[in-house]
């Protein structure tokens, strides 16, 4: 039986969706990790810059997937019958995308607003000298 090229966009779309869901699960766990550090402000302060790096990494992954979706749309355009099914996939993808964005916002808010940045080390040493 001859294989159909039209099946490939479905596979690609499924894999993109799986990737997005995995990123969302990861972010939820990362958020839990940050929250579990609780009152350890110095540690939170040290993790804040690395989060901006994670954010940058995720933005590139998002952009890559956006480009990939464009290619999938092009591949899918060969068969109009696929459009309805692909539309459902894209809707589901957008839903996960919104969940990712809202989690990222929550983490950013948590790192920037609620947790104060740690005192610079020189200030700490001054205090230690003063106390001794």
């Amino acid at each position, binding site marked *: 039986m001859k*294989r*159909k*090229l039209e*099946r*490939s966009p479905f*596979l*690609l779309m*499924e*894999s*993109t969706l*799986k*990737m997005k*869901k*995995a*990123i969302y*699960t*990861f972010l*939820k*766990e*990362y958020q*839990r*990790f940050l*929250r*579990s*550090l609780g009152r*350890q402000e*110095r*540690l939170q302060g*040290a*993790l804040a810059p*690395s989060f901006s*790096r*994670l954010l940058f*990494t*995720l933005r*590139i*992954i998002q952009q*890559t*997937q956006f*480009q*990939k979706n464009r*290619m999938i749309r*092009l*591949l899918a355009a060969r068969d109009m019958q696929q459009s309805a099914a692909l539309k459902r996939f894209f809707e589901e993808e957008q839903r996960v995308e919104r969940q990712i964005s809202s989690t990222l916002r929550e983490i950013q808010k948590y790192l920037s607003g609620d947790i104060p940045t740690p005192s610079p080390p020189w200030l700490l040493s001054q205090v230690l000298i003063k106390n001794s």
Partner: protein
Amino acid sequence: MSMPKIPKEKHRPDLDDTIIDLLESIALEEIALSHLINAEAENLQAFVGKDLDFPSNPSNSDILRFNVTVLRLMETLMFKELFLLRKLETVSQIGMQVDFEE
């Protein structure tokens, strides 16, 4: 000197089959990446513990080191994603070229 001629064989895939194989390989690689991300999420969960009590009793530097490991993995996945995008672009280009020539 002429180009080598590859003899026809029974089970050799044609160009369409090759394009399908390549597209499927991209999808499979991406699924593998999603499994890795899920595994990393489980790793985070195990490190933090069910009751947020850090069962392995890590020091602050252990926590920072763990964080660096997590970020490194995500960066590696980002590069892999970029490679997959390039692969998809190339395969689609070949597919479109074939369509155009037909």
